[in-house]
């Protein structure tokens, strides 16, 4: 019975595992090919300019190395890795994600086993470890600044709700990482409540904003609804096309959750405050050789690390040399963080002719997972009501821990850069 139910949920649950990577952990998801199609030449030339005198930002761009967004605690006192450390980390990561999950690593037929459906053979290829221990350059400790007391409260409320929905599951009974901070108990009456936020962000037990309930699509979070793409983004591929007064950026990110952005180069103001958009309103200007983009007018539904409609970004795009594009973004939201913070990373030029970018966001067009997941949940409701199945409150519906993304939740097989 339970096993069949798990099979029905397989697709959606596996999807949520990847969404966990995409939005929750904010690590770049390299679902597509990860190697640059054409290796960069040994020596980069000078940054090219366009006929009207501004830097040429055009082309397909992607990162060629992996650096964590935040500096892991164990590297707190160092900003860069040595070459030896990078080589060792590459070996370690490759061993962990390359090792086939066996009975010894995770028990077949368990909810944790489902997370391992996204194993190294499918989705967890990794770039080489980069030079820096964090992409965050400000604050200097490489960490996201402390959140405001109000945001702390919001996160605590979300976590409490998410854990209440988990409390009758095996994960809580066995004190597994998916239930960290929670306790085991009978099904919570809170299962009948509306979630405390539209975007259930950054909660244990609910990867990608999904909570442990499938009463309707909203419960499944932005990722499973194919709406996870957010600004800023530090993974995937970009294609930039540039005219004198516009810049167009196609983002190939996540699994078919890419999107396109059209940026006017103008001194004209942002739209009225009442116009809210998922990816905000971008206005660019040239500051010397740097394209500076100011982004406001985000939506209540936008979600970057818990920031919604008050998010404000100042992006800087610089063509460093013929092979390198540098992206630097200052992120601020005084309702979420106690001070602004800044992230930077370089992207490497890819061949236009090879065209190794996947332009169509087809997640929604192929979202059979959502139908399967909701239909599976209704079937479980019916069976329980007929006395023929377990209480749905005892089931874990995604982000149940295990080997999601090829890494263990904790221990020796955890992601060493986390």
């Amino acid at each position, binding site marked *: 019975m339970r096993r069949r139910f798990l099979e029905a949920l397989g697709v959606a649950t596996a999807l949520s595992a990847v969404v966990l990577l995409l939005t929750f952990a904010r690590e770049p998801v390299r679902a597509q090919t990860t190697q640059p199609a054409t290796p960069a030449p040994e020596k980069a030339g000078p940054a090219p300019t366009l006929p009207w005198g501004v830097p040429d930002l055009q082309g397909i761009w992607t990162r060629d190395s992996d650096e964590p967004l935040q500096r892991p605690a164990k590297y707190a006192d160092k900003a860069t890795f040595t070459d030896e450390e990078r080589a060792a980390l590459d070996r370690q990561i490759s061993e962990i994600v390359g090792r086939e999950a066996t009975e010894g690593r995770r028990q077949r037929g368990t909810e944790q086993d489902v997370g391992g459906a996204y194993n190294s053979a499918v989705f967890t290829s990794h770039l080489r470890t980069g030079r820096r221990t964090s992409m965050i350059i400000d604050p200097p400790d490489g960490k996201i600044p402390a959140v405001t007391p109000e945001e702390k409260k919001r996160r605590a409320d979300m976590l409490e709700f998410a854990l209440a929905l988990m409390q009758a599951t095996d994960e809580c009974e066995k004190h597994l990482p998916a239930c960290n901070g929670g306790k085991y108990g009978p099904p919570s009456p809170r299962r009948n409540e509306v979630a405390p936020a539209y975007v259930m962000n950054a909660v244990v037990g609910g990867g990608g904003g999904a909570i442990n309930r499938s009463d309707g699509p909203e419960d499944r979070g932005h990722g499973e609804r194919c709406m996870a793409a957010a600004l800023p983004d530090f993974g995937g591929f970009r294609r930039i*096309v540039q005219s004198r007064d516009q810049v*167009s950026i196609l983002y190939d990110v996540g699994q078919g959750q890419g999107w*396109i952005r059209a940026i006017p180069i103008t001194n004209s103001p942002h739209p009225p405050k009442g116009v809210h958009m998922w990816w905000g309103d971008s206005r660019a200007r040239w500051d010397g050789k740097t394209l500076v983009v100011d982004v406001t007018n985000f939506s209540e539904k936008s979600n970057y690390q818990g920031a919604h409609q008050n998010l404000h970004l100042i992006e800087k795009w610089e063509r460093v040399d013929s092979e390198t594009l540098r992206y630097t973004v200052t992120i601020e939201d005084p309702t979420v963080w106690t001070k602004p913070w800044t992230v930077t990373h370089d992207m490497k030029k890819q061949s236009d002719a090879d065209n190794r970018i996947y*332009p*169509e966001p087809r997640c*929604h067009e192929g979202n059979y997972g959502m139908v399967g997941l909701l239909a599976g949940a209704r079937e479980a409701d019916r069976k329980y009501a007929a006395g023929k199945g377990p209480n749905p409150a005892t089931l874990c519906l995604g982000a149940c821990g295990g080997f999601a993304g090829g890494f263990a939740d904790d221990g020796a097989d955890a992601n060493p850069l986390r």
Partner: protein
Amino acid sequence: MRSPAGVAIRAVIAAAAIAAAVGCDALKPNEMGPGTTARSTRTMDGKPDFSGVWQANNEANWDLQAHSARAGMVTQAGVYPYEYARVAAAPVVALGAAAGVPASIGVVEGDGEIPYKPEAAALKKENGEHWIDRDPELKCYLPGTPRAMYMPYPFQITQGTNQIQMAFAFSNASRVIHFGKVERPPDLTYMGHSVGRWEGDTLVVDVTEFNGKNWFDRAGNFHSDALHVVERYTLQTPDVIRYEATIEDPNVFTKAWKISMPLYRRMEPNMPLLEYRCIEYAEEFMYGGLRKQQLVKHWEGETMIVDITRKVPPGDKLYEWYRR
């Protein structure tokens, strides 16, 4: 809607003269947003410049072919049993005159007919009768090419030095037009694989690699994965593109046919491309029947049964309103 060739030629000559007079160096891009008319109509390499925010202003998305106005997006037989006397049906009846369909002189060139094979013509008719269930637009799916070009939403063209990228408000769809040698996409696509070339001042775009899942309009006009579209973009004035698309699909049509229409620049100063990220708007329509607590109370399996119960608030009854 179709300009005589002479007018188009004169417009191009005028545009060239303006470009020559202004000169690229005179441009101050930071002072000019999209939608501004005081701009060169040529790029610095002398090509017509299509950059900007554009939108069709016609009824092609309802039906490419000429049609009369209709009482509703969905209609049913009225009391009088004539085809022309159909009335709005339940899904839209509460919307009154806002739910009707505007008339059109059509955008199909020649005799205005779409040369369907007989079996395809039957499927087109059936599609139209099952519009709600079958039109990908209602599910917020990528609209395909050429439909994206004439949906009633703006789109932005960014003309780079070796590629042209388009961003569409509807469903955040996009296209890129390649020039020269480029690898094809790894799979068939909704929006097609576009390769452009210049024929004088006309941009000609060859679009292939379709997956066959799109429609041309809300009338059920459709194609297969053998679709081949050849588009022609010509600047008719600085603010109007003459857009033509020749459509071939040997699985569906007996011969090639062509649509043409003007695309207009959105002239509002400070006009950004505003999102219409509609996935969320289609969720109730697509998944509502699978909710634990249904919002529409009458789902029977995948069938949504819509009861129109519209309580008129006190003071808003028809005669009360009329007296105001």
